[in-house]
């Protein structure tokens, strides 16, 4: 699979988690792609720079003053509303956002994540990451399973500074889907064509194999 296919595979799987009426905040990168796979009027996208009701925008309708948190142009859905940054983060911290889908630099086997700083480099940006972690009712991580140099991004323990003491609920990669239950990582699903051996090999973290849904060729 090329990079694009991998990202779309992950985003598509994450989209399946959005069922029933829900308000969803999408992070930068793979999370942004999730919207492409949602065709449900009951899923509402929130962006922390001040809009509930994010939709796609066509090239000719781009408005430079209508962007998402990644500063990419977006559209305005029917029933959308705008608000200032304090009100927007009030929604997030106050648990009025149902799901946040985020990218990570690292995740660990207790569900803690690191996605805002790299030691040795300057700590230069956190944006809304910490607010989303403490506030969203459910947090789903979408990430490639390994970094560019092939190292596992799902570790025994994060080596980068953590984003929150709150564990995420789910991690979706191009290889598998993990759930965090009682502080432990459970692999609940393999992606099509992926074996548990491959997941074990490419994952530093300890996890419990709990595959009840056969997405691939073995349990």
């Amino acid at each position: 699979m090329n990079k694009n296919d991998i990202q779309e595979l992950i985003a598509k799987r994450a989209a399946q988690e959005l069922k029933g009426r829900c308000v969803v905040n999408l992070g930068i990168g793979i999370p942004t792609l999730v919207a492409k796979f949602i065709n449900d009027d009951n899923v509402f996208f929130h962006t922390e720079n001040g809009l509930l009701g994010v939709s796609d925008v066509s090239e000719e309708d781009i408005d430079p003053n209508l962007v998402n948190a990644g500063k990419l142009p977006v559209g305005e859905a029917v029933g959308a509303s705008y608000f200032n940054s304090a009100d927007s983060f009030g929604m997030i911290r106050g648990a009025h956002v149902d799901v946040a889908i985020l990218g990570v630099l690292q995740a660990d086997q207790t569900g803690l994540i690191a996605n805002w700083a790299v030691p040795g480099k300057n700590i230069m940006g956190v944006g809304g990451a910490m607010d989303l972690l403490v506030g969203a009712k459910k947090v789903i991580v979408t990430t490639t399973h390994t970094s560019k140099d092939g190292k596992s991004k799902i570790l025994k323990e994060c080596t980068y500074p953590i984003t929150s003491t709150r564990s995420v609920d789910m991690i979706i990669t191009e290889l598998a889907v993990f759930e965090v239950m009682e502080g432990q990582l459970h692999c609940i699903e393999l992606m099509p064509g992926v074996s548990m051996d491959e997941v074990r090999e490419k994952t530093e973290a300890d996890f419990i194999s709990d595959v009840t849904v056969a997405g691939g060729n073995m349990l």
Partner: protein
Amino acid sequence: MKVYSDAAEALQSVKSNQTIMVGGFGLVGAPLTLIDELTRKEIDGLTVISNNLGEKGKGLGILVNQKKIKKGIGSYFTSNRDVGDAYQKGELELELLPQGTLAESMRAGGAGLGGYYTKTGVGTDLAKGKEERVIDGITYVFEPAIKADVALIRAWKADTLGNLVYYKTAQNFNPLMATAADVVIAEVDEIVEAGELSPEEIVTPHLFVDGIIRAEKILTKDGVVSNEQK
């Protein structure tokens, strides 16, 4: 409340070593005309409170390169590499806050509060040295209110009294900064007569606003251009 004829006049009272809030999320909703004037003004030692410090060589990024900024307080400096470089060289102090904390601290400053307790950041490097407090079983950190000498903001329309309305996601931090500074100057696309904005649509009531100017720099699909309608 005064309608200024240009940015130079509007920023006449801005001095070195002041704390200045600057609106915008990146360039969206940033007061580009007023920032442009800051780049021309002979001032330094500024503390700038803004989500970003512009982009490389753009907006507040120019002030960074001019070394007019002593300290930046914001949530996301990554989009301008010059900021990191200046920080490394010890030429620029930085205070990084979670974006929700940055916004909330401005609101607290504007609303006469001393500070507040937030869950955000608890247990992370950004909460190091901050006071923790458990309230109803949940751990929070204390965050003090933020105020400034001057706020430079961007709105869509102003009326002649100084009431402001904003445009879509160009709102962001602007209405909060309007409450939290001693002097508030707003740059707008259009100035209409009092009474033309509906009382229900006004976001920033005029009691917060000290001066307005018509924007000369406008963000378009093709970047920042001069306002030709002027």
